[in-house]
């Protein structure tokens, strides 16, 4: 099977997967013991309002018709609107305004496993069965077992203290920000110009607006939750990285290289690391669901109004249609990332089977 027919097969298989996931969501929300309309209206509802909302949600139709409507609407990205959280706002609009903060959080939390977890794992794999290996491995395993919510609470408390945890005050470190709250993401604007000045004269102009201070502030706000969110993946990547390096170091071609008289540095950089990276890179994508699940908790703790927070609020405040639409978006993201992962595998390592 060629790469492209494998890819096509993967795409076609994704359709029933998404369909099944959305069907489950539909069943939970519309067939479950809670009636979405009375949940939206709360305890004191009048019949008129009830019927109006029911008609708007299409709940007065027969069940099968509701199901088809639900699927068609989702497929056309006609995601309905919010009823309780921000009444009469289109769900798409809400997602558009909440998603950037979650993406920002996800971006920074992926950096941690990439730039801390993998190097640490490689280091442990290159020095197996030494004390530093044990320390790194143990750290990775314990780190992985730490619940996000607890780590978040502890980190938040540590940062709120003056000069206790870090030796300096996090709140006023570099730029003065609060510790909890949403990161300001308006450091970038397509309109406007940024001048890079050196020594009083304008060196060149960037064709967009970029506020450096806001940028730093946004990073500072997002770092603590991102560290916690990335911690589980970091532990995983570390363990996997260690195993991958150990496997490569003991492989025949490394032995050949050594017999040839290649320098140690060259062996490690050219032969070991490159091959050990193969299994690691795609797995980052596989952990998207950890990030989405964890974002609910961390956004709640750190007061960031992102998608996870929105979902939690939608569920607890009985804005069930919105929760269903969000779930659909999450399912799409995860399925898409899974396909991307498989695709990356076939590019990075053509040996990995298509028939798996």
């Amino acid at each position, binding site marked *: 099977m060629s790469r492209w027919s494998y890819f096509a097969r993967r795409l076609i*298989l994704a359709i*029933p*997967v*998404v369909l*099944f*996931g959305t069907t*489950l*969501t539909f069943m*939970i*929300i519309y067939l*479950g*013991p*809670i009636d979405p309309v009375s949940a939206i209206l709360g305890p004191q509802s009048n019949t008129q309002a009830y019927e109006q909302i029911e008609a708007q949600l299409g709940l007065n139709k027969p069940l099968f018709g509701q199901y088809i409507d639900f699927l068609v609407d989702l497929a056309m990205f006609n995601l309905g609107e919010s009823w309780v959280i921000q009444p009469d706002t289109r769900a798409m609009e809400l997602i558009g305004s909440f998603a950037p903060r979650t993406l920002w959080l996800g971006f920074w939390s992926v950096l941690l496993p990439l730039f801390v977890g993998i190097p640490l794992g490689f280091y442990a794999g290159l020095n197996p069965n030494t004390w530093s290996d044990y320390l790194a491995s143990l750290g990775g*395993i*314990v780190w*992985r*077992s*730490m*619940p*996000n*919510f*607890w*780590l978040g*609470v*502890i980190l938040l*408390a*540590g940062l*709120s203290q003056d000069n206790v945890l870090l030796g300096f005050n996090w709140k006023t470190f570099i730029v003065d920000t609060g510790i909890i709250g949403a990161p300001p993401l308006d450091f970038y604007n397509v309109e406007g110009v940024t001048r890079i000045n050196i020594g009083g004269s304008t060196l060149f102009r960037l064709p967009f607006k970029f506020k450096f201070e806001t940028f730093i502030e946004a990073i500072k706000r997002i770092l603590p939750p991102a560290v916690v969110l990335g911690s*589980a*993946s970091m532990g*995983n990547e570390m*363990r*996997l990285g*260690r*195993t991958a390096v*150990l*496997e490569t170091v003991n492989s025949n071609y490394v032995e050949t290289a050594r017999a040839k008289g290649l320098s140690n540095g060259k062996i490690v950089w050219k032969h070991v690391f490159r091959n050990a990276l193969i*299994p690691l890179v795609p*797995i980052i994508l*596989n*952990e998207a*669901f*950890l990030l*989405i*699940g*964890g974002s*609910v*908790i961390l956004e709640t703790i750190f007061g960031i109004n992102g998608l996870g927070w929105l*979902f*939690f609020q939608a*569920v*607890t405040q009985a804005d*069930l249609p919105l*929760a269903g639409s969000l*779930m659909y978006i*999450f*399912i799409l993201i*995860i*399925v898409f990332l*899974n396909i991307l992962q498989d695709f990356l595998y076939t590019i990075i390592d053509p040996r990995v089977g298509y028939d798996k």
Partner: protein
Amino acid sequence: MSEKSETSTLRERILAHPEPAMIWLAGATLLFLPQASAFFETLMLWGDMVNPFTTGSLEIMSWYVDTMVGTLGPVGGYFMVAVGGLVLVSIVTVLVKAFFIPFSIVESLGLEDLPISADLLERTIVGSVITVIGVLLVFSPLGAALEGLFAVLADIATVFTDRWTLLSRDVMPNQGFQPPASATDQYPTGALGPYHGTFLGLEPAVVWAVRVLLVYLYAFLWIGWAWFGYKTFRRHYRYADWTPRDDMIDRFSTHRWGQFGFVVVAMFLTMAIFAPPLGPVTAQENIQEPYSYQVNYTENGTVKNITHGGANSGSLSQGGDRNVGVLQYDDFGRFHPIGTTTNGKDLWTFMTMGSRVSLFIGLLAIVGSGFIAASLALVTAYYKGLTDLAVVVLSDGIQAMPALLVLILLSTVLAGHPISKVYNGALVLVLIFIAIQWAGLWRALRGPALQVSEQEWIDAAKSYGQRPTTTMKKHMAPYILGYLLVYGSLNLGGIIISVAALSFLGLGIEPPVPEWGRMVNSGQPYVASFSWHIATIPGIMVVLVVTGFNAFGDGIRDAIDPQSDGASSDEAAAAGGGG
């Protein structure tokens, strides 16, 4: 040794050479006797646990009937009720047939020649018997009679429960006070210390520590004795001199990391099983009905009396001056091993009772989802093709939904449903976890199961016409069982984290019932104050227990499959949980 022959049963082998077995049995009896009454008490407790389950399931069934008849009208409603009943009966039938009926009914009745499938006939017979029994129990006085029988049995068991127990609060009470010199006649002090009411008059903290130590010593004695029993069996009664399992055990016995996991898991299990004697005070007195129980204490040279509730509100931990920390006594002479909660209850008692909740949910969910995953893995590996593809789609569909979000959604949606009342919401969590977790477990077991199904002996079994179910059970299941244990152990850690995360968010287990995550939530404002213990210690315990389960899983994996060498991505995902 020489008379061990392949055909003799274990019983015959023991009868031929009974001494080692007798020694082991005598030791086990000696160990069992001091705790016999506690054992019966636990049995009674489990008996009581069945009640909410049966009433709860009756309630759920009537809810199902009502909704179906209500939404689909009488005809469609009763049709759906019949369908639901059929599904339920077939599930129970398969389970009963698999676990309780080892022989073939069809063969013993001599019905093999009938022109329908033997399996189907077998299941129809079992299913109709179950239906008749079920209908009789629900609709005839037989159910009430059975209830009466159980009540009589319970009465008999009560006779055993009130006997002397070594590891109990009554033998070693740790609640006492130091009477003032003027009142020692009224409140005599103990033999070894100046306290009234405690074991030998010792300090409450010391008595508590001794009791906890004894409990753990007792538990580890049992583990050691069980190990000795296994060795006795291996040496004297096993037919084969060597089995592959011996090598696994040898590998595990040099695997320090796995042993660490085993010890942590054993300590966690002991904590859950022996929760009542481990706490310095009973959960009933301190957490559930604090205003119905009283405690004596000394103040300004006089002995005073206060309810536990009153004392609780005088020993809050809320930072600043109001704090009862680790290894401290409160103002009423009550000892708190790891301090008090924000509303003055004993944190350690809360944690021990909470470990029961975590273990209950985790174990049941893993057993349930493991059973589904293993059966599906066998079936898909045996038949491959379309069956495999269908289960791939199902499991991918479930895994495409972020597990924690589904948990949040489902536990909110089901909050008003009768099923959420059973065991304070634990049962519904178990069911949700089973529904979610089987997908990941099946994915992890699919590879090993496929590998086994490619082996020659499976071909051989097929070619001489062995029934597919028998081939799966006898020739495939033993090979994937070890992997099930590995992934089960890893997943259990994930479930414990997820349950704690849910109660951290204020969902899941209903409030008066202890759950570790809730303490992290309520202690959150005080992490950086003197009352740091409320959120920190439960969190550390979650980390420790989950690390233990992960290490144990690693150990078993290295023992059963020494070539595997390290982690795979499936395991990484399983252990994280996402909370």
